[in-house]
């Protein structure tokens, strides 16, 4: 049951990620330094061990905990600009400011 509710939460986060990039961008513009809301967008896929993408191609989402922060930041910026293509990541990264990207990169890159 606990497991099921976690998956439900993940699905809800994924839906949120698709639905509200514009709302998130407004939050960033308003100078909200907290990235708690942004991290919940990441955790819906990257926080679940063994989670797989369903679209456009099925494979395991990469592990980002412990990854190089510079690499994570560059990846998010490339998704944001469209240089790196993935529909979900594009939608999420489009809502992020440079400062939020650096915070997210530090959070996952520094994590153990």
């Amino acid at each position, binding site marked *: 049951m606990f497991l099921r509710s976690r998956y439900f939460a993940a699905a809800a986060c994924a839906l949120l990620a698709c639905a509200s990039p514009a709302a998130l961008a407004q939050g960033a513009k308003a100078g909200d330094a907290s990235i708690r809301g942004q*991290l919940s967008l990441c*955790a819906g896929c*990257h*926080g*679940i*061990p*063994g*989670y797989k993408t369903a679209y456009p*191609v099925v*494979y*395991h*989402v*990469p*592990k*980002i*905990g*412990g*990854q*190089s*922060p*510079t*690499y994570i930041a*560059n990846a998010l910026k490339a998704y944001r600009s469209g*240089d*790196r*293509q993935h529909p979900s990541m594009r939608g999420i990264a489009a809502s992020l400011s440079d400062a939020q990207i650096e915070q997210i990169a530090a959070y*996952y890159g520094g*994590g*153990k």
Partner: protein
Amino acid sequence: MKRLVLAAAALALCGAAQAAGNAQAGKQKAAQVCAACHGPAGDKPTAPENPILAGQHADYLARALQDYKSGKRANPVMKGFAATLSRQDIDDLAAWFASQPSGLHAQR
């Protein structure tokens, strides 16, 4: 009967296409192609721009290499290296790096 044979052949082909890579072959290939920037086991990148590969999911690594090779994922450096790799090389490298220990993990 003919249909049955065809179905069996198709299944066998699918199996071959999804065969797991050979980590030991991947280790040798990695030493030639990947090690200079990612480390021989993929756990010690030589620059912060380069990702840790050790312990990453094999199917993600293989997807990344295929996308670099096709140009779907644009990176001048990785495109050059990936262009030299066969499909088998890619599966072997993915198996090698995925099997190596690192601090990579799913994190909430």
